């Protein structure tokens, strides 16, 4: 197996992609979980398919088009959540489906056979190119820089937004910034596990990490490590057993979560 990773360029790229997206999974995933943005992140991931459709129809570069579409969807959903007096989740659900529908129609209107369409839905980490890796690395750096600078502000608005407002923090701006980072993380994760499964990588590693620590900073570090282990191991399993990589990664991650939760339960029963 290690030989194979060294031997084939696509496996080396896949490995790098897996390790690089772990950074976003851990850092942004932690913020998504503590801010209860899991549903919203799922919405962004699906609405992003609209961006894929636009790219097909207009012949634009998919990565750029999907990024713009996701960021707009994220800000739209964030705005709805902020302004809607009642049931913002209903509106977010609607936007989720509308984005997807726009994508389906635009793809259908585009002539030709779309072989790589499956990749957007279910991921294609084995087909990650050098430019994809560069995109992922740049977004990672952006995420790390912003979270490093504004971690106190992010923690304050996550924990108690009203108090943060009384402190004079620009709550809406920081929320918006967080949503933009979530959108960009979603775009890079679509490459790895596909838009349908994105939600798992943004929530499960962070959820496991949250059980292990009482600090947001450690939650981020731990969930980066958990994501990296699960993605690389999932990749390896999918290679050995010739299974779809995205789904293998997700199932392994979910299994880790399940084992962890039940293990903790058992441990608590024994120790009490």
């Amino acid at each position, binding site marked *: 197996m290690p030989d194979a990773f060294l031997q084939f360029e696509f496996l080396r790229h896949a490995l790098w992609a897996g390790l690089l997206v772990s950074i976003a999974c851990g850092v942004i995933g932690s913020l998504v979980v*503590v801010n209860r943005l899991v549903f919203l992140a799922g919405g962004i991931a699906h609405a992003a398919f609209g961006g894929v459709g636009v790219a097909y129809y207009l012949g634009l570069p998919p990565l750029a088009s999907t990024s713009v579409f996701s960021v707009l969807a994220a800000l739209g959903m964030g705005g709805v959540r902020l302004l809607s*007096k009642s049931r913002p989740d209903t509106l977010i659900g609607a936007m989720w489906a509308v984005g997807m529908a726009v994508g389906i129609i635009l793809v259908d209107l585009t002539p030709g056979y779309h072989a790589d369409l499956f990749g957007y839905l279910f991921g294609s980490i084995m087909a990650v190119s050098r430019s994809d890796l560069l995109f992922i690395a740049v977004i990672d750096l952006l995420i790390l820089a912003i979270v*490093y*600078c*504004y*971690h*106190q*502000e992010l*923690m*304050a608005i*996550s*924990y*108690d937004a*009203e*108090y*943060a*407002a*009384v*402190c*004079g*923090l*620009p709550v809406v701006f920081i929320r918006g910034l967080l949503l933009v980072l979530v959108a960009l993380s979603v775009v890079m994760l679509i490459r790895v596990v596909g838009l349908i499964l994105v939600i798992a990588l943004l929530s499960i590693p962070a959820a496991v990490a*949250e059980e292990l*620590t*009482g*600090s*947001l900073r*450690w*939650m981020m570090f731990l969930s980066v490590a958990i994501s990296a282990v699960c993605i690389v191991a999932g990749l390896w399993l999918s290679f050995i057993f010739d299974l779809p990589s995205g789904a293998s990664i997700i199932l392994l991650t979910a299994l880790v979560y399940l084992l962890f939760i039940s293990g903790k339960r058992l441990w608590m029963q024994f120790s009490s």
Partner: protein
Amino acid sequence: MVKEKEDYCRSPVVSVADVSFSYNRLPVLENINLTIRRGDFLGIIGPNGGGKTTLVKLILGLLRPQKGAVHVLGTDPVKARSRVAYVPQHAPEDREFPITVWEVALQGRLQASVWGYRYSREDRQRAADELRRVEMWDLRKRPIGALSGGQRQRVFLARALCRDPEIIFLDEPTVGIDSLAQENIYDLLQSLNQRMTIVIVTHDIGVISQHVRSVACVNRTLIAHNEGLITAEMLEKTYNCPVDLIAHGVPHRLFQPHSS
């Protein structure tokens, strides 16, 4: 000289002029006029849903009045925020949230900064002082979710005090806290009142009556704003029904004898 000092002490720190506010066209507050003077210990009382919290949020600038004007420390509520502190009613209930007592207290020192705020040595010192004052220093490493209601309320008080506020607003600070912890918090507030104006919102008239200097009754309109006297008539108007002035058997300076 003495006169000057007295004038300073009596100067208004909050003025609410003819303010109305409604949620979705449902009027919550109508034509409220209220002046809070420096050094006051004001209790805002009224039934649940009577608009007490809304009034405080208007004074903090978290909400904007649809009619009328609010001034805090002679300026706009948003501009006055650095000199005002707030202990919210629904302290975040997310018990899972990964944050420690120390981190919550430090947040009291947080302020807007272009490249992100970094806590200074002074910030840490102030947070430590206030945690010691509320006797929560020993628990500073605990996750906030692991504390009891009373302990958490003390941490939120420390967070508010870190800002060196001139006015502090507390919204139902003693809900869900046993009576001993309540007394502790009120004793603490009493000593703080020597250097800051305190405004406390509560529906628990029994407890505040022993501590406050003045009382405002709010139920959509401002029923009364009195210095140091809760009368049966005031309560009846506020709650729309006769309210017993139960004083836990303690003679109250604030309560008049029952008329009925």
